[in-house]
């Protein structure tokens, strides 16, 4: 392939990424605003929260992280919770590593990895054929700048908004979590059942004596290892039904 062709190809994919990133950016903006409110409640300043959003690019991970900061948890708790909640990114990265051509160099792979989110993964893993990393750069730069901006505004403006509105905006995150898990629950009834089991046990753990005293972060880790581990053992995903294949078939 001649070089000028490859450069124009990169530009084409980058611009397509910027365009496809617009709806993602809109969703991120609202959700990260709520995240900023969580960060403010955890005692973070606007630049600390914005820095966290720029570096972490993770909704659930950052939310849990801010909860750890709020509860003054240990650094080990922070590392464990981040690892548990971001474990899904590992699977996404494994999937994307199969999508990238062998020409993709290590630096490009690091950038693609840095910007793996649920939505960017969703958009880039459904590209037909091999994946051009510049598509991911476009998606990420468009959507994640609004992620950081929203987080920043959430911290700054969160305290001048009426309490009712802040409460309502805080629920945006949970709505987003539901929007991530339910479509897979529809495709795979085992996942749907697991969602209900998870919620039921989570409720029980939060109300039971002794267990409820463990703290939210620890309960999330225990429940995830218990339920996802049990599910993997009792109903391992069959190869022809693997998540990669389902995702790429969308």
């Amino acid at each position: 392939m001649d070089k000028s062709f490859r450069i124009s190809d990169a530009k084409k994919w980058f611009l397509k990424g910027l365009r496809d990133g617009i709806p993602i950016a809109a969703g991120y903006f609202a959700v990260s605003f709520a995240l900023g409110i969580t960060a403010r409640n955890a005692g973070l300043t606007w630049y600390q929260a914005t820095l966290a959003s720029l570096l972490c690019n993770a909704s659930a991970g950052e939310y849990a992280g801010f909860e750890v900061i709020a509860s003054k948890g240990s650094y080990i708790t922070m590392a464990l919770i981040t690892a548990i909640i971001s474990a899904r990114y590992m699977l996404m990265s494994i999937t994307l590593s199969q999508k990238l051509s062998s020409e993709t160099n290590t630096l490009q792979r690091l950038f693609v990895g840095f910007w793996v989110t649920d939505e960017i993964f969703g958009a880039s893993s459904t590209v037909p054929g091999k994946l051009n990393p510049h598509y991911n750069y476009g998606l990420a730069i468009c959507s994640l700048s609004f992620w950081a901006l929203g987080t920043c505004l959430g911290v700054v403006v969160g305290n001048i908004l009426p309490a009712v509105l802040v409460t309502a905006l805080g629920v945006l995150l949970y709505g987003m979590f539901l929007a991530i898990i339910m479509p897979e629950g529809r495709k795979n009834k085992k996942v749907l059942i697991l969602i209900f089991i998870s919620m039921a046990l989570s409720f029980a753990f939060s109300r039971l004596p002794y267990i409820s005293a463990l703290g939210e972060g620890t309960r999330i880790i225990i429940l995830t290892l218990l339920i996802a581990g049990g599910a993997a053992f009792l109903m391992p995903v069959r190869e022809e039904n693997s998540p990669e294949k389902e995702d790429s078939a969308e």
Partner: protein
Amino acid sequence: MRHNVYIYILIMCGVSFLLRALPLTLIRKEIKNKYFRSFLYYVPYVTLAVMTFPAIMDAVSNPLGGIAALVIGMAAAYFGAGLFPTAIICSVIVFCVEFFIK
């Protein structure tokens, strides 16, 4: 023990970056162990479900609003409402309940 916010942030971004970047740079072959693959596959759904309930109920002043948001949000997402609409639906329900039912 006093904790530094920047160290917290560093741990957060360090761990999540390693998890995302290592598979892309190191693992060029597919993981074959079906139990590990299945575990990774189930993790996000379990974790997010655990994080959503009962938190959505405890985050609002009227638990009924949280439950209504959960049930309607789950239904909307199930039928394909998408990220942004589902989030807005949940938020509007909680706003209405908080605002009109004291």
